[in-house]
């Protein structure tokens, strides 16, 4: 049962102000009632002074919770005989629910190999968000040993907490190159499997 002052006849808020299920009567200014229509299922009411009603419906804040997980793998070897970055073909795309959420990127880039022939060759792997480089080299100079012998390194890994500040589809990927402009370096050598995992973390 509602508790409150019973208005005098003809002075209360008229029933006709309610137009649909879920409508809320809210104050939009002093002595000025208004209506806030029901929000999306699961959304909660939050204060927002920019809104005419001072309120809005919004997705509940994640508060550090994992909201979604995207995982991708690749097991096709790629060999780069240049010092120009090339795609490893390890890539994953995520669409954050809110621009304030973060994305935890976890990469395990396997099958790093320096091909025999050049003493200065080494594998450099970087991480990108769309076209933006976010980690320039997370493999060190894998395989380097100051000799022209072949050298195989199991893997290079990285974890990076990113703030993409968007609700658009966002692609994370790795690229690699040889430290020297020579033959050459490989990833996913022997068709070993690399993986990338994206976790959206609520703000």
């Amino acid at each position: 049962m509602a508790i409150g002052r019973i208005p005098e006849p003809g002075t209360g808020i008229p029933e006709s102000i309610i137009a649909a299920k879920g409508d809320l009567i809210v104050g939009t200014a002093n002595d000025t009632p208004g209506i806030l229509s029901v929000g999306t299922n699961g959304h909660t009411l939050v204060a927002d002074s920019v809104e005419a009603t001072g309120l809005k419906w919004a997705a509940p804040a994640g508060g550090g919770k994992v909201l979604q997980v995207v995982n991708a793998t690749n097991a096709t070897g790629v060999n780069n005989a240049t010092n120009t970055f090339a795609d490893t073909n390890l890539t994953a795309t995520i669409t954050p629910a809110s621009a304030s959420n973060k994305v935890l990127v976890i990469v395990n880039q396997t099958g790093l190999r320096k091909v025999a022939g050049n003493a200065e060759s080494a594998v450099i792997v970087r991480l990108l968000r769309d076209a933006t480089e976010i980690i320039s080299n997370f493999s060190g100079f894998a395989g380097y040993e100051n000799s022209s012998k072949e050298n195989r390194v199991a893997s290079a890994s990285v974890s990076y907490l990113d703030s993409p500040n968007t609700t658009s589809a966002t692609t994370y990927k790795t690229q690699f190159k040889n430290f020297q402009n020579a033959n050459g370096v490989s990833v996913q050598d022997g068709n070993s499997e690399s993986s990338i995992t994206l976790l959206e973390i609520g703000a």
Partner: protein
Amino acid sequence: MATGAEVLGMLRPKGGWVITGDDFSGIQWISCDPLNQKEFEDGFPAYDAWKAEQDAAKAAEKAALLNRLGITAEEAKLLLS
């Protein structure tokens, strides 16, 4: 059996290329003279023959050295251990 990277490493040893997998369609020519598909595919048996030749030459060289030293391969291993 040779890999695409090994074939390119033999035919374009100075680099300038990127290859994904072992198919001609996976090659990007970055800074070297490109091969055509036939040249690339002919490179597989050529690489295998070249590799067998290299391995045979190495084995002969090793045997000749052991012979000059007057020791067996097992004795050489013991010396190096």
